[in-house]
């Protein structure tokens, strides 16, 4: 069995190639230092178009389980087309976050579906900062906007973003502490619920 | 404190305004009618061009300046009825047929690759001519009798100078190759020739006529 498995094997709604995505994942796994002995599954929900982005990175039964909305790999200018630079960033972020979960520092982190938006976006900032230092294409200002949306449009949040973006090593407790610091200075009322677009969650919400 | 009732001169020592100016009511109204006409043709062109230029910065500047010239046209439209002639439409006209040809040529370029031609017409030929005509009017007319026109000229000239500078900077940033220098020069030369034939924004005598100044001054006294 191949180390990287991409689902679906054939895309019917978008112009994506599972083999090419598997190849990119292999390449980025090597580049990010992802452990050689851990299998990786990449599940892509091709039904979701831009702007319905979303991604999760978990460790399930000892393998990295990456889930992406199809929108995360879509070229905003050409409907259903694959955007390789963006896809590379997304895959690298997922791999780094899954690798974080394999270490002891993130043993206490809830699975992605149970993470708050604030925590997930903070963690993704740290991951994308590391991707940038690997020389890959990144979207720093977009990431900052996402981070601010869930951690506050405040100077404290902006300073936290800088720390996360440039951090070399963090543990789950650091992410929690940074988000708590942001929350303490955020004048907004706490969000009532968190946003998620995973099919399973949506089905559950409808029931 | 000034003693109550103490007489003071009607004009302060530094107020050097004089009577009469070079223009009478009729001449001032004729020129203002020409100004309104050219401002209208210019704001229409800028508005029309917005959709035809691909350069975003140029697009936004044209959109902004379109209104500047519309406002100038509005100022002149308000001034015209104050200059004895109540029929503003009659006075809203070009000075001659040559001016119509010049304006048609300025407004002619349409294709998206002709931004340089569009901007040269406005910023290297038309607006400099307007600045000259407005400046002459401001310097030549009486600052006492024609003060309302002068007040408008002051506002308008401020706009024109700023717009001219902005347009020239856009052009300098667009003209990057010897071929583009050639294009800009050729375009300017062709339009200069046309406006020379027209005699300027208000026709022959736009910037005055040294031999005729005495006559104009006399008209100013008799009519104004």
């Amino acid at each position, binding site marked *: 069995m191949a180390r990287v498995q991409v689902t679906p094997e054939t895309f019917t*709604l*978008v112009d994506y190639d599972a083999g090419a995505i598997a190849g990119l994942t292999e390449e980025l796994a090597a580049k990010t230092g992802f452990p050689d002995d851990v299998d990786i599954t990449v599940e892509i929900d*091709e*039904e979701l*178009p*831009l*702007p*319905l*982005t979303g991604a999760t990175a978990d460790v399930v039964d000892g393998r990295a389980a990456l889930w992406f909305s199809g*929108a995360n790999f879509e070229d*905003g*200018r*050409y*409907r259903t087309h694959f955007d390789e630079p963006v896809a590379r960033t997304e895959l690298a972020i997922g791999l780094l976050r899954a690798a974080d979960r394999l270490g002891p520092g993130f043993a206490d982190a809830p699975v992605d579906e149970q993470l708050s*938006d604030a925590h997930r976006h903070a963690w993704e900032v740290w991951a994308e900062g590391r991707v940038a230092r690997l020389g890959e294409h990144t979207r720093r*200002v*977009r990431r900052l*906007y*996402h981070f601010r*949306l869930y951690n506050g*449009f405040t100077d404290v949040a902006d300073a936290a973003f800088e720390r996360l973006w440039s951090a070399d090593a963090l543990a789950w407790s650091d992410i929690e502490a940074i988000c708590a610091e942001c929350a303490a200075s*955020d*004048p*907004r009322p706490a*969000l009532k619920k*968190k*946003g998620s*677009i995973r*099919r399973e969650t*949506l*089905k559950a919400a*409808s029931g | 404190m000034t003693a109550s009732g103490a007489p003071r001169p009607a004009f302060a020592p530094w107020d050097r305004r004089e009577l009469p100016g070079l223009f009478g009511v009729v001449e001032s109204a004729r020129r203002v009618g020409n100004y309104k006409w050219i401002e*209208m043709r210019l*704001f229409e*062109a*800028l*508005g*029309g*061009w*917005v*959709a*035809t*230029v*691909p*350069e*975003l910065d140029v*697009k*936004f*500047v*044209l*959109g*902004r300046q*379109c*209104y500047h*010239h*519309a406002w100038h*046209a*509005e100022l002149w439209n308000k001034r015209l009825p104050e200059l004895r002639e109540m029929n503003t439409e009659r006075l809203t006209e070009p000075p001659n047929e040559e001016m119509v040809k010049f304006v048609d040529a300025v*407004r002619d370029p*349409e294709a998206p690759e002709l931004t340089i031609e569009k901007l040269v017409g406005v910023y290297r030929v038309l607006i400099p001519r307007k600045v000259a005509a407005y400046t002459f009017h401001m310097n030549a007319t009486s600052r006492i009798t024609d003060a309302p026109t002068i007040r408008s000229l002051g506002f308008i000239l401020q706009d024109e100078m700023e717009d001219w500078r902005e347009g020239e900077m856009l052009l300098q940033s667009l003209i990057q190759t010897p071929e583009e220098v050639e294009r800009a020069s050729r375009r300017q030369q062709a339009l200069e020739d046309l406006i020379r034939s027209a005699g300027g924004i208000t026709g022959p005598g736009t910037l005055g006529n040294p031999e005729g100044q005495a006559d104009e001054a006399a008209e100013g006294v008799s009519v104004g």
Partner: protein
Amino acid sequence: MKKILPVEELARDSRFVRARIEDAISDPRQAKVSERNTGSARLEPARPAAADRARQLMHGIFVGEIQALEGAGRTTFDFDDDEIPFQLKLDMARQCWDESRHCEISVKLSEHMGSEIGEFTEATFLYEAACAPDALLRLTGVNRALEGLAIDVFNTMKEFGDVSGDPVLAACEDWMLADEVTHVKMGSDWLRRLTENDPERRERALEFQRTVDKLFSLGGFRGETDENPIQLARKFREMAGFSTEEIDDLSEVATEAQEEARAAADALHGVASGD
């Protein structure tokens, strides 16, 4: 330069990619997504993918503002002095400046949200509605329908800025909203003045507006239920001179558009799945 510039000739730099609204409607993923319970469609931070939704909407606002600028600009040029009143031309020139500012604001807001110019496609249906050969139709199509849509969109974005605590977004949208209310009012006033003695012409113009309004409802994009991302901004529409009856009519038009789009998607899905 010719009068009446067709939409195909709108000038853009290489970053812009034009989309057709039919492409979106025929995308099979649309039907799939509509089957999912995604909860309220209102733009709010708790909504899934809220940040990227907001970014894409902001880009849509940006290209919409460009087309509104171009539409107003063309109206200053396309009609001779004897075709439309001088004062109407001046109003269109003023609108040109306002739309130009809105473009600049939208570029800055897009940068603030981490978007690049041309990151998303540009649909040109706004300009298409803005280049009618009859000036009166432009007033209804642009000033009442298009600018009315802008009121709804800006109010939605302003509320999103408020609820997400984004002071830059909320403040900028509020400024733009103020301008759009003026533009709609301008359109309403001119429509009344130009058709004072011609009720039939007025009715034709309003019928055109209804058609454009339906188009701008974008199959449920705009409306008054939780299913509509863009909410009808009743208060601001009233400030702009729309009567309650007109807003009620628009709400009905939006509902019709949503139902038609749903039926079309169902039909397409049925064909695709062989039902």
